């Protein structure tokens, strides 16, 4: 960082100052380091309410009630759920192919999760081979794009305006604009998942997913 600042200082000095004769050149050691002008921007934490997870403690009727409650929140009249093929193509045509797929594949395969342009996530087949990577560009945080090894778009996540504040919704579409899943993010630890036909798939609480009967179905290593 210090090296970059020094280089920037030299560059601006070079551009803005007139040329000097040889006898006027001075050593870098004589220059006092400039104070950093880069403001330290504090990263705001997303707004999140404290939520109780009681899925395992309530009865089946109460679970059904919660399932219907979150389904209504996700699939209401005002939700933009389905894209037509043309609409999807129009909105996401520039992301159809990742032109930097080799770079992004290499980054994610080497464990990079973030750089100055985007955040990355890797998906492996049998813990061995990276088969898909996801990109969330910092200039477009309401969408995440999932690509295969050759940079072909596979899925698109569309999050609601509230993101990154909770609660928010996330809809996942395939490359033709067909809805694949809908998730209601109550908090970082708690999400309700539904399929494209509004069928309940499960509730994630931290690293475990539970089905409608309160039975554990899946686990995850990263949330």
């Amino acid at each position, binding site marked *: 960082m210090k090296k970059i600042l020094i280089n920037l200082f030299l560059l601006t000095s070079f551009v803005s100052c007139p040329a000097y004769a040889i006898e006027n050149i001075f050593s870098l050691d004589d220059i006092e380091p400039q104070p950093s002008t880069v403001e330290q921007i504090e990263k705001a934490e997303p707004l999140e309410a404290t939520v109780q997870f009681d899925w395992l403690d309530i009865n089946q009727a109460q679970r059904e009630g919660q399932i219907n409650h979150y389904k209504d929140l996700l699939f209401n009249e005002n939700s933009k759920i389905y894209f037509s093929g043309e609409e999807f193509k129009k909105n996401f045509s520039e992301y159809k192919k990742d032109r930097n797929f080799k770079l992004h594949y290499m980054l994610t395969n080497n464990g990079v999760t973030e750089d100055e342009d985007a955040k990355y996530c890797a998906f492996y*087949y049998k813990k061995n*081979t990276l*088969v898909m990577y996801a990109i969330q560009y910092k200039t477009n945080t309401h969408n995440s794009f999932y690509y295969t090894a050759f940079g072909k778009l596979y899925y698109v996540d569309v999050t609601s305006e509230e993101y990154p504040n909770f609660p928010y919704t996330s809809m996942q579409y395939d490359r033709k604009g067909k809805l694949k899943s809908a998730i209601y993010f109550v908090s970082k630890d708690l999400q309700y998942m539904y399929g494209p036909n509004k069928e309940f798939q499960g509730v994630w609480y931290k690293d475990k997913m539970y089905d409608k009967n309160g039975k554990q179905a899946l686990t995850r290593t990263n949330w």
Partner: protein
Amino acid sequence: MDNFSGNKTTLLNELSGGNVEFGEAFAMFINDMVDQDGYQNPYAKTYFIMSPSWLKLANQDNKTKEDNDKLNEEFCETIRDTAKSYLLFIARETGNLTGKLDFTQYEKFMMKYRFNKDASRLQPEYLAEVKTKIRNAFNKIISHGEDDKLPEVKLLDKECMADFIAALMISVNLNKNDEFDGFKIEGSIVPREYVVNEHFLFEAGDNMFGAKLRIAHKMLNNQFE
């Protein structure tokens, strides 16, 4: 049920257990190992097909019969899984619906992924040369390394593809005097070895890669005593 649906079911049955994204990743890895002319990409990485536990057991001295059986079983299963996945990806890219590629489909795939890295090179004379190479590769693979004995039905199926992938993982064993001392199975595909294998794959007639294909075929079909 119309013919299209029937054929698509055939593809899924033929290559059941295959994962098309994995096949694509595999294609990407080996494609990245060479440039248009078949020279090694200096930035390409070794691709590990076998698991770390397999590699660990394979590198142990004094393996028991059970150890060797276990290694063999996992090797064959992994190779077949990779072969089906790779074929599934090729099938998707070429519009194949049966899981068994004919020459035209194989050629289409190779032109799109292997020989299109530098499109400016695709002049008629070069194209003719490339098509000959692809034909040699196809013949070598479908004949399991015996390209003077081509089968009647000229299709590249999952058995052929498994032989090809296994052959990529066979390397020459040299003794202390740098003399040939048989073959050994690696758990990975190393770029510098892939370059050599590909060169021989594209060459007509019997050669080292043909020998590797024959060994791979026998190995995968338990034809070694």
